[in-house]
């Protein structure tokens, strides 16, 4: 299921885009709020870490399929995703509500 090894360049660019969203856009972190944004159709993109428990991962993916929202599986665990968000805690899943100045929503769901 893993295509080629994710090149360092695209990984860095995702981190850059995520940093821009953190600065300029709206987002929520955490499983409960991710489901809430999916239910009220505010979420535009969901990012899940690679060590998210598989049941929770499939549940989020199912909700996103119903809501027709893209899901990105971040190459990195929740510690790394938390760092990428500029937070000092682990982030297992996050939902981007408004991308602000970033083009993360346009560029990401292509590669899913």
């Amino acid at each position, binding site marked *: 299921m893993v295509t080629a090894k994710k090149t360092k360049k695209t990984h860095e660019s995702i981190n850059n885009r995520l940093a821009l969203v953190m600065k300029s856009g709206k987002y929520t972190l955490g499983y409960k709020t991710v489901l809430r944004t999916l*239910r009220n*159709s505010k979420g535009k993109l969901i990012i899940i870490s690679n060590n998210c428990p598989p049941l929770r991962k499939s549940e989020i993916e199912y909700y996103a399929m*119903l*809501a027709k929202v893209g899901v990105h599986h971040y190459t990195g665990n929740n510690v790394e995703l938390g760092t990428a968000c500029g937070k000092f805690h682990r982030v297992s899943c996050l939902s981007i509500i408004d991308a602000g100045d970033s083009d993360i929503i346009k560029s990401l769901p292509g590669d899913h």
Partner: protein
Amino acid sequence: MVKFLKPNKAVIVLQGRYAGRKAVIVKSFDDGTRDRAYGHCLVAGIKKYPAKVVRKDSAKKTAKKSRVKCFVKLVNYRHLMPTRYTLDVDLKDTVTLDALQTRDKKIAAAKETKAKFEERFKSGKNRWFFTKLRF
């Protein structure tokens, strides 16, 4: 970005007495009401699934096995698992918020949904909805 908790959506109740039962959304209150300040919806679900009917059953037995017992309830969105299935039954007029006020109105609403569900079960459509979820 598509709203999916809409009327006629089949859902599975996750918490409470009816946990594990399938239900259909009749009316959704996304922003809540004064009494319930959270997103919730009115669902009509199956309390007791119809039994498996075999060909060699007599007509009387088939009738008995095809009975469905229903419930009507207001459930928080958090306590539901939406599915990709829908159930097209017109329950808008029979199952209303006001039917939940008194006990006999609730029983009357449940009886009417029972009739509609049984008719749908006998027609053979929406088979997924009438099979018990095994867990």
